Structure formats: structure tokens, C-alpha cells
């Protein structure tokens, strides 16, 4: 069962815990800082023709003769965009990575909704598959969970960039974006995440992998079946190949961590057998600057 009967109880527990841990540092408690028609002064900029005269700083013009426009900080509610990878590779493993991904998405959505933030859920694989529109209020968690339950792994490949493109096109403004995926994007996960950066989305990556992906239990003559493309590949797997695979896998994981660290994105890497609440708790502890509560996550 994806969402057991006590799932909501555990979500509530996480929500309360998050408020104690962050004390207003997370999500809706931390407002977006945008320039606009707020009342709190931010800075000046030079006047350009067509600017509203009401915002000209006449005092400065009087003293120095320079036309400068006053800028004010506008406070808005945080928009949390959750991007869930629904490619077939997410259905791999026991338990399937997709199960943990949906549970994590539900947990983060609940915490955000409880903090009066707006959430938007995008299900993608090689393109946007489905969308849970921007919504607000704790009461929306049940429709969201139903939405998640109805989701299935589909698509022939994983394309984060297409998913991000869909998000960008649909969302009216930037916000915090959590990408939950295995990041097995043959075109490269960096392309999609770059687009998030360029659009000034505050990004966080939750990368899920299965133990069999980390240590593939195969040796000898086998026929590999790619669960995404259903393509076969007859190979003889030697111990040397296994060693090479492990090396490549670890390099891939390392490249994800390296990318997130370089561009200030949050990163959580976890095997699929970790309980979702432990994982979310660990994410929050990291965000709050505490030491990680459990191994298996990073970022």
C-alpha cells in the first residue's frame, strides 16, 4: 500500500517537527524576495524612460541632480514546485523507487501546504505526463494523494529538461522546485537543472536509487533488458565489468553531488529502502544546518 492508514499521522508529525526545527526558515515562513510594490525599501536604480514618476527619489535629484528610481521589496507566498519522475526506471527495485518518490512528494507537499505555501506537482518522464495544479491549503493533501496513487510509471526515457521546460511554461512565477528522480537521463541531468537555475528557481534534488543499481547481482552470460525502452542486450558480464559499472555509478552519483554543491542546490541521495519520514526528516535537518540524522542522504 502506497499510503498506509497512518500516513497522514506521520505527515502531521513531520509538519510539526519541521516548524520546531526551522523556526520560520522554511517554505512559507521564508518569503520570496522580489522587487515590486512593497513598502520596504530595497535600493535605487537609474531612471529609464517610461518609468513611473511616482517612484523617483526627488530628494536625491534635489541634492545631486541624478534621476534615481526607488525600489521596494515585495513579499509574496512561496510557490513550491514538485517534479516527480514517472519514467519506467523509477519502477525498478524492491521496493520500487517510485513508491518512495511519491511518498516523499506527498510529505513535502503536506509540509508546504501546512505552512500556507502553494504547491504544484508535475509528473514527467520524457515529457509532462500529468499535473496537479497550483493549490493551497492543507485540505488539498487528500486530492494530491489520490493524484499520486493514480500515477503510473510510463514513457520510454527520462528527460529532465523537457520536464523543466513544461514547468517553466506552466508556472507564472519562480519558486522552490524539488526534483524527485533517479536522474538516469541519458541526455544528462545537468541540462534540465541548468534551466531551473537560469529561470531563478530555487532547486533541490532528491535522487533515489535501488541497491541492485548500486551492486548489480549479475555475472556471466545474461540478457539485459532496459525497463524503459524494453531493449535487449546480450552480454557477458565479468567481474571486471561489474567493477567498471560500480565505478561509473559512483561517478554519476558524485557528479550529481558536485553539480548541486557548485550551484547552491540542495541534494539528497538515498536508496529506495529508506523510510520516507526518515528521509524527509534528514532533508530538513540538513536544510536547518544540523548534522544528518541518517546515512544514505547527502547534498
Amino acid at each position: 500500500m502506497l499510503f498506509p492508514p497512518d500516513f497522514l499521522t506521520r505527515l502531521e508529525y513531520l509538519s510539526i517537527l519541521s516548524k520546531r526545527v526551522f523556526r520560520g526558515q522554511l517554505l512559507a515562513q521564508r518569503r520570496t524576495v522580489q522587487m515590486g510594490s512593497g513598502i520596504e525599501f530595497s535600493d535605487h536604480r537609474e531612471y529609464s524612460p517610461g518609468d513611473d514618476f511616482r517612484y523617483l527619489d526627488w530628494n536625491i535629484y534635489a541634492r545631486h541632480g541624478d534621476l534615481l528610481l526607488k525600489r521596494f521589496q515585495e513579499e509574496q507566498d512561496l510557490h513550491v514546485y514538485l517534479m516527480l519522475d514517472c519514467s519506467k526506471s523509477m519502477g525498478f527495485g524492491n521496493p520500487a523507487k517510485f513508491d518512495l518518490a511519491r511518498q516523499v512528494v506527498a510529505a513535502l507537499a503536506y509540509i508546504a501546504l501546512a505552512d500556507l505555501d502553494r504547491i504544484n506537482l508535475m509528473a514527467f518522464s520524457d515529457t509532462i505526463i500529468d499535473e496537479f495544479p497550483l493549490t493551497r491549503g492543507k485540505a488539498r493533501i487528500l486530492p494530491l494523494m489520490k493524484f499520486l496513487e493514480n500515477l503510473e510509471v510510463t514513457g520510454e526515457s527520462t528527460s529532465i529538461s523537457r520536464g523543466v521546460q513544461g514547468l517553466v511554461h506552466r508556472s507564472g512565477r519562480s519558486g522552490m522546485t524539488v526534483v524527485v528522480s533517479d536522474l538516469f537521463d541519458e541526455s544528462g541531468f545537468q541540462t534540465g537543472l541548468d534551466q531551473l537555475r537560469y529561470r531563478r528557481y530555487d532547486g533541490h534534488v532528491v535522487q533515489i536509487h535501488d541497491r541492485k543499481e548500486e551492486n548489480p547481482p549479475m555475472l556471466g552470460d545474461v540478457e539485459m533488458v532496459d525497463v524503459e525502452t524494453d531493449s535487449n542486450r546480450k552480454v557477458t558480464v565479468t567481474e571486471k565489468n561489474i567493477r567498471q559499472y560500480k565505478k561509473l555509478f559512483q561517478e554519476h552519483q558524485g557528479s550529481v553531488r558536485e553539480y548541486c554543491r557548485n550551484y547552491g542546490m540542495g541534494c539528497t541521495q538515498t536508496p529506495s529502502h529508506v523510510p520516507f519520514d526518515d528521509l524527509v526528516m534528514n532533508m530538513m535537518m540538513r536544510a536547518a544546518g544540523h548534522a544528518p540524522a541518517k546515512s544514505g542522504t547527502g547534498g
Partner: protein
Amino acid sequence: MSLAVPSALAFALVALPIIVFYILKVRLRQVPVSTNMFWKQIFEEKPPRSIWQKFRHLLSLLVQLLLLGLMVFALADPYFSWQAMKARRIVLVVDNSASMKATDVSPTRFNAAIERAIELADGLRFRDEMAIVLAGSRPDVVLGMSGHIPTLKESLRSIEVSDNPTRLDSAIALGQQLIGDHPNGEVVVLTDGCADIPQNDTLPLGGSAQPGRVRGDTSTDEANADANNEIAKTNEELSEILPARSLSSRPSQREGDIAVGDTKLSWQVFASEASNVGITQFQVRRSLIDMLGYEVLASVKNASDNAIKCRLEITLSDSVVDVIPLELKPGELWSRSLEKTSREGGILSATLTKIRGDADEEVEDEKPTAEDLEKLAQLNQLSSDDFAWAILPEQKVQNVLIVTEGNLFLRKVFEANPLVNVTTVTEMPESFPTDTLVVLHRLVPKVLPPGDVFVVDPIEDCDQWSIGKSIENPIVTEIDTKSDLMTHVRLDNVLLPEARSITFKNDPKILAGTISKEAVYAQINRPSGKCLLLSVDLDKSDLAFRTTFPIMVTNALNWFVESSGELRESSKTGDLVSWPIDSKTFAGGAMILQTPARVETEIAAFHGVKASEMKQNEMTIGPFEQSGVWAIGSQFMTKVAQGKEPVEFVSNIAVNIASERETDLRPTEAMLERSNESTSLSGWFGKPVWYYLIAAAAVLFVAEWLLHQRRVLS
């Protein structure tokens, strides 16, 4: 080439599933992977670099098919026509004599010979046959002709070394008989060469070998029926497998081999110029001058090229009797006769101790170091002949009651024997004690007392005889020389002063009689006890008779106690011994023989047979294959549940190696010259074809395993 089991080729059908499995190998085990992005890098970055990698699966199939082919061919048991034509019949003659225990060849000569014999057995080809003959005291067929190598090897491993002397002639002859007129026969003798090499023309080629390893070998004893049946069975088997022997001679097949008759004879000698010192003789006998004394004859031989010092320690029932220091020159045989005295008797044992080189000093009361033991092992390569035993029976004191009116000569004759306790009375007693020899001189009761009675010069009638007239100057003309009572007694043509004519009521056994058939000395048969009668008047006897009479009394005393007075000599290993069967001891029970290693064997059974019904007086025991003290005992069944009572041992037999040839471990030059390692069994290519096929299959198996490993482990 032919196939012994062509039907085994049907196993070639196993190739079909192999090929099917190879084809099905295209449908490999499916393993789902979440992404191919890593595997692509691995497999596409390193494409097959050579044709070898492309074809290694096909090569694997070919190797598997070849492996199967070899195994199927091996199961079909192929053989060449020349193998069938030249099938060999080989007899291994294994020497297990005492000298084979020597340690100059590691671990021992015998073990080295057995290992070599096993190697030879391994070299048998298809249709070859091999038999194993043991060159013991009597040749023994350990295993008849067989081509089954495991059975041959098991039989070889079951052979034990003995203390027997080396007797190769009869074993070789038996081997030749087993081979018969087979064109490719060969007798391979595995020995240490410590024997005289048998001459071709003196071998008992046509003689019938007696396979005699059965102890308690008797011809008539019912109890030994099983043993005799075994002998008969063995002889029947031999007669079945021994074809009529062709005596045509044929030149030897190879230089260095000996052709005996038409059979090739080859030698495998396991020996070196080993040093040894040993006891070659140890016998004991009664002293001729002392009734309580005995003489020991001991011989020690230094069978080495070095001077040796040692001690000969003689003990009697663990009490030291004598210690003789010996300094033996190279090859010296030392012999000495020793006079000792003992009434109690016991087991007399001789041991060589403190064996050392001529230049080495004797170290007293110190534990020998490893270096000392190494030196000792070099000087004395065989320890079995450092010990010898002899049996000295106890001499019992005999009670004698002399009833005489007074004859000092008669009394002194008995009193002169230290083993006699003499009581003299002048009047006839009313009753006679038991366990006492009653000597009646002149006076005789109406009825002879029960038990042992020795009557001298009776003057009255009794229940056994009537006294007749006196005989003047009788001449003894008839002597029973076979009787123990007349040992060392010579009365032929002796003129006696006076005797009496006796009329016996039962026919006696006359030991000495006159020309007129009158009994002078007679053994009277009566159920109540033993009785001897001497009718000579002692008072009138002359010097000749007075010299003889003490000897007659000594013989009579021994006869009454059922002892001949002579010691039983120590036997040699491999000998057979005639043993008297004492009806009192063994009637109703079983005769048990105990080896020096305390292993008991029933050699005769007289269950349900009464003493009076026992017809057999003597049986042959042996051959004794181990030196030491063997024991003979009796065992009776208990009345409850047919169990057996503990064995009661009544006699001992001392068995010694006592052989100069066995002590001398140096092989004869003639034997060494004729020794050759190259028998027809030697060589790698003596094995059957299937052996090589299996070996090749094993190689291919390893190759396939490596191919598989190369695929998996890279």
C-alpha cells in the same frame, strides 16, 4: 582398434542436449536493468578486440563436444589389437622375510617393495592379469590371477611383513605354475636380495607347491577339518588355474632378465649395504652333569664391515642371569655355551644392548640422544634379531616313598636326585599317600596301591602277577629302544646275576627281556595308575647293572611325572612344530594358540570329546611367522549360554629369527647384478587407452573451465 564395450557409444547422444543447450544459450537469462547508460559505456567503449572473443563461445561448444567424445570413447573401452595379442600374465613374488624390516631403505625395505608393487599393478594394461605370491616360509597365493587393479592394490596393502626366513625358490616356482604356458608371462620378485639366488636348473619347476599358511595343520584331527578343507580348496583352485606346464625353454626376452624355463624372471631389489648385528642362535638344554642345571648356546653375528661393541643380556623371568660384553670384528660370529642353574624355570630371553661402534664409549645410565639413536640405527638396521627367547620348564620335586627292608643302594639312587624327596619305611604301611611314587622293594601288598608304583625285585604275588622261580644269570636280549624309559640305557647282552620269573595277569609292555622271553623290566598297564616292575635282584647285581640302574630310575621318575626331562628347543620362524596333545588338558575344550602380540587363535577343538576317546596324540603347529614367545592354552565352554571361559595357558613356545642370512642385511652380489628396474610393466604407456582418454578429457575440462572463467572473471 577395437572396442570392448561398443554399446557405450550410445552415450554420444548426450551431445544432442549439449548442442540444444548451446543453441538455447541465445536465450540468455534475462536481467532487468533500470538504465543502460552505464552498461553502454562499458560494452561500447570496449568492443570485442579479437576474433578469439567472437568465437570463444563456439570454441567452448567444441571443447564440450570433444570432452564428451573422449569420455564416451573411454566408456567404450578401446584397445588395440596388439594389446589383446600381447596380454601379459604377471606374478609378483613379494618377499616378506625378517630382513625386509630393515630401515636402510625408507621407510622400510618391505614398504618400499609394496609401493613398487602397487606401481607395477598400476601399470597393468587391458586384458593383463596379475597374481600375488608371498614368499613366506611356504609360498602363499595372496591373490590369484586378476586384472582388477583396485583388488590387486588392496591385496598388496594387506600383506604384512613377518620374521620368516627368505625362501624364494618355492614361491617363484609357484608363480611359474600360475603363469603356466602363457606366452607373455613374467615373474617379478620383489626382495631385498638377502637370499641365495635360485638357480634356473634347480628350481622345482614341476613340483607341487604346498600353500601352507594354516596353523594347526593336522591330517586326522577332526577339529582341524576346516583348516584341511582350506588347504584342499586352495589346491583345487590351483589345479584349476594351473595349466599343464610346458617345459620347453625359450631365450630370455631382454638382456638382464632371467628366463626360467619359458617364463621371464625379473628382480626388484630393495636393499643397500646395511650394517646389522643380531642373535643368530639361542638354544637351551639340560645340563649333562647337573640335574638342576641347564646350558645356553648363544651366537651373535656382526653382519657389517665395522667392528661393533655391544652387550648380550640374558634374563630369566625378568631376573638378570648374565651380561656378556662383546667386541665383534667385522663379519665375526661369536658363539658360547653358558652353564646356569635354575629349578623354577621360566622364559629365558636374550637381548643385545648398548650397541655402538668400536671407537664409541659406552654411556651408562643416560637417556640416549638423537645422535646416539641415529648412530645405533646406522649400525643396527634390523632390531627384530636383537632379541631371542627360550623356554626353561620348571622342575617339580617328586615325593617318593620307598618300602624296603633295607637296601642302601636303592635309597641312595633316589636320594642322589635333587628333585626327589625320599621317605623310607621298612614295613608295609596300611595306607599310601597320594601324589607320591611308591617304590616297593621285595615287599609287595596283595593288591598294588593306586597311583604310581615302581616295584623292584618282588618276592610275593599280588593282583598283577605271580612270582615264579628265580632265573640265574639271565641275558638281556630284547630292549624297547623307542620307550622313554630306556633312554640312555644299554642292557643289550648284559649278563644279570639273578632275576625272577614273573607271570603277569595282564599283558605288560616289556621294556627289557631275556632270550627266553622272560620280562626283566616291564610296564604294567592297569587303570588305577602307572606301574613299572624290575625283577632284578639289586643285592646281587654287578657293576654294569649298578651303573645302569640310576639312569633307569631317572627315566622312570620322568616317566611317572610325564616329563621326558628334555627341554623343548627354541624354534625358528617359519618352522612347524609337533606338539603333544595332553588329553587331560585339552579333552572337552579347545586348544588356543596365542601370538607374541597376544592375538589368540583356536587351532583345535575337542568339545564333547572325553580324554579316553581322544585318538590323536600329537599335532603340528605353525608356521610361526613372528618371533617371540607363543603360548598354548586350553579353553572350555561355560555351561551357561555357551559362553567361553578364559583361556588357561599351559605351555610356551619360543620362536626366534635365529638366521645368519636374515641378520646379514647385505644383498648378495649376484642378486644385485640381476636386479633390474625395467620390467615389462614399467613406463607411462603401460596403461589402458581409456586412462589416457580420461586424462585428455580432464585436460579439456580444465580448458573449458578456464574459458568459462575467462568469460566470467575476465
